[in-house]
């Protein structure tokens, strides 16, 4: 797999020895409500130099997956390989830099001191001043870490991850505490880092972030991978809108055949159309069925789109679910099934 990765001169010998391989990863936790199957058999392979978004709603299993990738958590089953070796070895060699989902900074050091301290742990760190510049924290370099705002803290945490100059950078929902401007600056930094030939994996529940900053998105929901592909394909898959209209006497088959419509269902007089192109769909709908009324167009949120992709409702009846690594089947009749089950 690593052989197919583009031979960029900036990719180090470490990274050349293979990308990231997650195979059959499974992890469950005991909780008061019973066993939570956080990750249910996932396979992901990431080539060196790729920027991949791990996309999914809260509770999808993203953080658990990342913890296993970083060697913080042992999988119940399956294997993790980071550049051809176990994650703990890759971490010990300094090949991994990371920014975990939760976390603050330790106190009583200045920003510059903290970054210097962390740099000293890596075999070939970035220059500290360069890192501070890159992460946009040069102005606050002399401030104590316990006197920073939430956004500043987040940027310093990024600096701590970047200073490793590691081949693999893992970021777990890095922009959660940031405002819109902060987000843009953050991703600007990330792009600059990725451009050095680094492998970047970040978890997010913002589709836009995945779309704008990753080459590829891996969609997770309920501990499984439901889609894996170029971000524009993923976006088309989950960026659906729904048209609802009161429309008597039309078969759902006829509605489903309208341009831009991927699925349709009826409930009494109410018709619900899932659309890939809601603009085309609404034009066609009104020209063919001018008596349609009470029309409502809603953007399916990511959350909703995930539910459809994973046929959440159906799963309740078939807890065994999909076999590990089964292909995503978003555009099938399962959409309707899921919509039905949500009611």
């Amino acid at each position, binding site marked *: 797999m690593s052989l197919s990765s583009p031979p960029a001169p900036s990719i180090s010998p470490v990274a050349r020895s293979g990308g990231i391989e997650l195979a059959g990863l499974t992890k469950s936790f005991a909780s008061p409500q019973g066993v939570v199957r956080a990750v249910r058999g996932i396979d992901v392979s990431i080539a060196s130099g790729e920027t991949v978004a791990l996309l999914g709603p809260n509770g999808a299993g993203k953080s658990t997956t990342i913890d296993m990738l970083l060697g913080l958590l042992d999988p119940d089953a399956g294997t993790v390989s980071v550049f051809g070796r176990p994650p703990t070895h890759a971490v010990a060699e300094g090949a991994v830099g990371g920014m975990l989902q939760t976390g603050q900074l330790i106190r*009583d050091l200045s920003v510059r001191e903290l970054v210097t301290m962390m740099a*000293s742990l890596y075999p070939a760190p970035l220059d500290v001043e360069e890192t501070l510049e890159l992460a946009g924290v040069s102005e606050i370099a002399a401030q104590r870490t316990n006197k920073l705002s939430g956004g500043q803290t987040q940027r310093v945490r990024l600096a701590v991850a970047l200073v*490793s100059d590691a081949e693999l950078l893992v970021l777990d929902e890095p922009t959660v505490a940031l405002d819109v401007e902060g987000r843009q600056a953050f991703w600007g930094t990330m792009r600059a880092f990725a451009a050095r030939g680094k492998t970047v994996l970040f978890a997010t529940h913002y589709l836009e972030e995945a779309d704008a900053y990753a080459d590829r998105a891996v969609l997770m929901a309920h501990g499984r991978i439901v889609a894996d592909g170029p971000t524009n394909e993923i976006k088309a898959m989950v960026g659906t809108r729904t048209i609802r209209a009161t429309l008597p006497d039309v078969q759902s088959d006829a509605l489903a055949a309208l341009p831009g419509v991927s699925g349709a269902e009826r409930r009494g007089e109410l018709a619900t159309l899932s659309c890939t192109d809601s603009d085309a769909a609404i034009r066609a709908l009104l020209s063919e069925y001018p008596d349609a009324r009470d029309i409502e167009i809603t953007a399916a949120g990511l959350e909703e789109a995930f539910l459809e992709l994973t046929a959440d409702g159906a799963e309740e009846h078939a807890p065994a679910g999909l076999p590990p690594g089964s292909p995503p089947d978003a555009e099938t009749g399962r959409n309707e099934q899921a919509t039905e089950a949500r009611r």
Partner: protein
Amino acid sequence: MNSLVYTRYELLRTLRNRRFFLLSLGFPLILFFAIAGPNRNVHNFDKSGISSPLYYMVGMAAFGTMSAMFSCGGRIAAERAVGWNRQLRITPLSPRSYFRVKVITGYMMAIISLLALYLAGTSLGVRLGASEWLEMTGLILVGLIPFAALGILIGHMLTPDSTGPAMGGGISLLALLGGVYFPLGHHGFLPELAQYIPSYWLVQASHVAIGGHAWPAKGWIVMFAWTVVLSVLAGRAYRSDTGRV
């Protein structure tokens, strides 16, 4: 990788935390002056032939150094609570280096506490020969090893809000059983039990300077056994503690 840089900042960080510093240093000093101050002219404390300031200086030296090692656990718990320990685990910092730096930090605090008490003692008229100062200091430093392991163990087992009571209670009990506050005597259950408790030997170490005996074989064995047991437990606690707190 340069562990000197890492160690330096860890020490700097500890010294800069004024609240922590004053509390862990101030408490044994306050106790010392509160107890020994009014009795500074008692030259034959409890018919032992030594002065009250001397007795309490060495008692508080054991107490203060023990607290310094425990407080290392409190700092670990606080770091875990903000997720810093997980951050460290995804760096090349080895568990061995991690422990080493924590132990060095604990020792630094202990030595500062020790020096402060020596100064305080001297200010109340304590005078010892050079060899007595040295022997006492040396044995105390060795006697702190099991407490270093204990500090790391609690740091990885408890949450910051429970380390307070655990440490306060633990230190008081260990100090009491070790004979920090008053001599335990020589007969009955308590002195018998005390010989199996590390703080007893720590206090004995400090008592070298006041005519106590250096550790017999039993003392070394007890201390060694505690060191092994606590280190194994601390290592286990560290390894199983990778989750989000």
